[in-house]
């Protein structure tokens, strides 16, 4: 859980087809995606592939739903994971907003022994951060504190999301 979360656009991966955002949670030194890359540096080829795929989506295809593993959160909250095959090692959680915006959360090593992410504490935590974030973004959108840009490629408004229930 978090008390405050900031949405930050990643310019290198954002292009005419869509924008990639990540999150900076509370007092963390780095964004969730930076931590994901840093903590999984041993899976270099998978990280390279993930960055290449995200850039291709931002610049050429958009964040089409078939590039993701859908329904990883609560119904309708858009929480998903970048597609990972059975033999891959990493799982990266995201929130999709149509094919034009994606928010990258955290993720990590996906042990072969587990059948569901709930069995892994780190993956479970990263997944629930995005579930909560999605809920708060929806509330802020209803309150017109955050909205999509006219071309649908960006978030506008107050991109700092506070968790009013945090204790």
């Amino acid at each position, binding site marked *: 859980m978090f008390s*405050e979360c*900031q949405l*930050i656009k*990643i*310019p*290198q*991966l954002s292009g005419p087809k869509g924008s990639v955002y990540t999150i*900076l949670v509370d*007092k*963390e*030194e*780095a*964004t969730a995606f*930076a931590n994901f*890359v*840093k903590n999984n540096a041993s899976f270099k080829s998978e*990280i*390279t*592939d993930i*960055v*290449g*795929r995200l*850039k*291709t*989506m931002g610049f*050429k*295809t958009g964040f*089409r739903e*078939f*590039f993701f593993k859908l329904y990883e959160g609560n119904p309708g909250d858009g929480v998903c994971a970048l*597609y990972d*095959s059975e033999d891959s090692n990493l799982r990266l959680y995201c929130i999709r907003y149509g094919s034009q915006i994606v928010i990258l959360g955290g993720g990590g090593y996906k042990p072969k022994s587990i059948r569901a992410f709930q069995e892994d504490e780190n993956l479970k935590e990263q997944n629930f951060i995005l579930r909560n974030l999605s809920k708060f973004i929806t509330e802020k959108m209803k309150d017109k504190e955050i909205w999509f840009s006219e071309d649908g490629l960006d978030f506008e408004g107050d991109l*700092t999301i506070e968790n009013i229930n945090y204790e």
Partner: protein
Amino acid sequence: MNKSAQENFDFIDDILEEMSSVEMKKIEQRMLNAEKIRKAMDSKGWNNSNLLEALNMKSLSIITKWLSGTHNFTQDTLVEIGDVLGINFFEAKESKVTIEFNFPIMENKTSGFDPFSSLAYILNSHEINLSSSISYNCPEYQA
């Protein structure tokens, strides 16, 4: 909130710089193939099961893998998919061809056009003598 993290995505530049252009093209092509398949399926109103059935295959997960943009297709598979979906993965892309025509710039003679003097100009410039010609005596030209 650490503001420096907002703009510090140098690590992404590092990853992209380390990646060869061929490696990037491979990733792009896998995703573009997936997108092409999905679009063709949509235009036929097909879901994954329809494509599986058309290909006479059994494992639905292979279609999901193909559409994920991570699959390295063999040429044979692309031919088979293209055949059932009515698309061609190997045709050359349509490219825009620009053909330039250069015409000599002609002096605009339409303003104050005098057909008789224009004819005289042409005849003089080509040293044509039509003094006995019927056409030269045409009343229209003498008007």
